[in-house]
């Protein structure tokens, strides 16, 4: 049934005007502007901690976009993994490398103009590309596309092998991070190696 709906949706693109947006589209666009703005601030601000906080806004906004696209499970994973752990890790990283709280004049390297040129060129090319390719495509949002049940079914029926490989990857990353960070390896009790080394060094300075 859903394929029929999708077919119907895609077959009448002319009927969908960009000038009379649906409610979902309006919300999507507003959140999209917020996400984009937060992302831009995040890569341009000179205050390192603010950059991480704007990243939270951008990634959280994306979770809302996923919800609007009916990909529920992905949205909640986005919230849990990105907002719950990645950003926290980033903030820890900034603190442990003694990132200044205020403005730091050397947040950007000397090749900003070149970076701007590359970014603008890629944006121009890719926007032209996707607008040209997808301007008449219509997403049919009726019916669930990403419930937890559905996600479980497709993950464990079609994508089992990469899923298992990914679990191995996580183990490897875990072991690797421990190798690089555990300061005293006598195995009796774990010691907060990073933190202590960094703090004592900071005092020495």
């Amino acid at each position, binding site marked *: 049934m859903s394929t029929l709906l999708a077919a119907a949706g895609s077959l009448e693109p002319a009927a*969908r005007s960009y000038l009379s947006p649906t409610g979902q589209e309006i919300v999507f666009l507003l959140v999209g502007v917020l996400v984009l703005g937060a992302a831009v601030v995040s890569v341009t601000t000179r205050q390192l901690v603010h950059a991480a906080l704007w990243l939270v806004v951008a990634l959280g906004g994306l979770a809302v976009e996923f919800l609007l696209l009916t990909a529920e499970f992905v949205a909640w994973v986005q919230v849990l993994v990105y907002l719950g752990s990645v950003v926290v890790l980033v903030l820890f990283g900034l603190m442990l*490398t003694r990132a200044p709280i205020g403005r730091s004049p050397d*947040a950007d390297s000397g090749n900003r103009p070149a970076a701007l040129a590359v970014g603008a060129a890629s944006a121009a090319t890719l926007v032209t590309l996707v607008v040209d390719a997808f301007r008449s495509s219509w997403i049919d949002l009726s019916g669930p596309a990403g419930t937890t049940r559905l996600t479980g079914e497709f993950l464990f029926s079609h994508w089992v092998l990469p899923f298992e490989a990914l679990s191995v990857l996580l183990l490897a990353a875990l072991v690797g991070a421990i190798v690089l960070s555990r300061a005293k390896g006598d195995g009796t009790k774990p010691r907060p190696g990073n933190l202590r080394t960094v703090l004592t060094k900071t005092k020495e300075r």
Partner: protein
Amino acid sequence: MHLAYPAVLAVLLFSVGVYGVLARRNVILVLMSVELMLNAVNLNLVAFDVWLRDTLHAGQALTLFTITVAAAEIGLGLAIVLLVYRTRRTAAVDRVTALGDRHEADDPADAAEEKEQAAA
């Protein structure tokens, strides 16, 4: 919903991420920009998945995998950054330049490609 909206948003986010990777000096800020690029990919994938009504849901599966990989990557990345920070007291990419063809800095092929050295 028009597919063009998520697609254009994803492309713009990706470009913002590319700019951030190239322009930032602090390794952690570079990593954050890479995360933006990966998220742009995710938005694209989810939008295509829902649009295509893909029975295998390859787009959402890859999105979930990307999120996981990004988390692993950033954990490992921060371990490496802290390791370097402990020995060098810096997290700036363009100060980490002991390696390289320095006696032949006029070599354009390398100078252009190695962004770490570009600012030096």
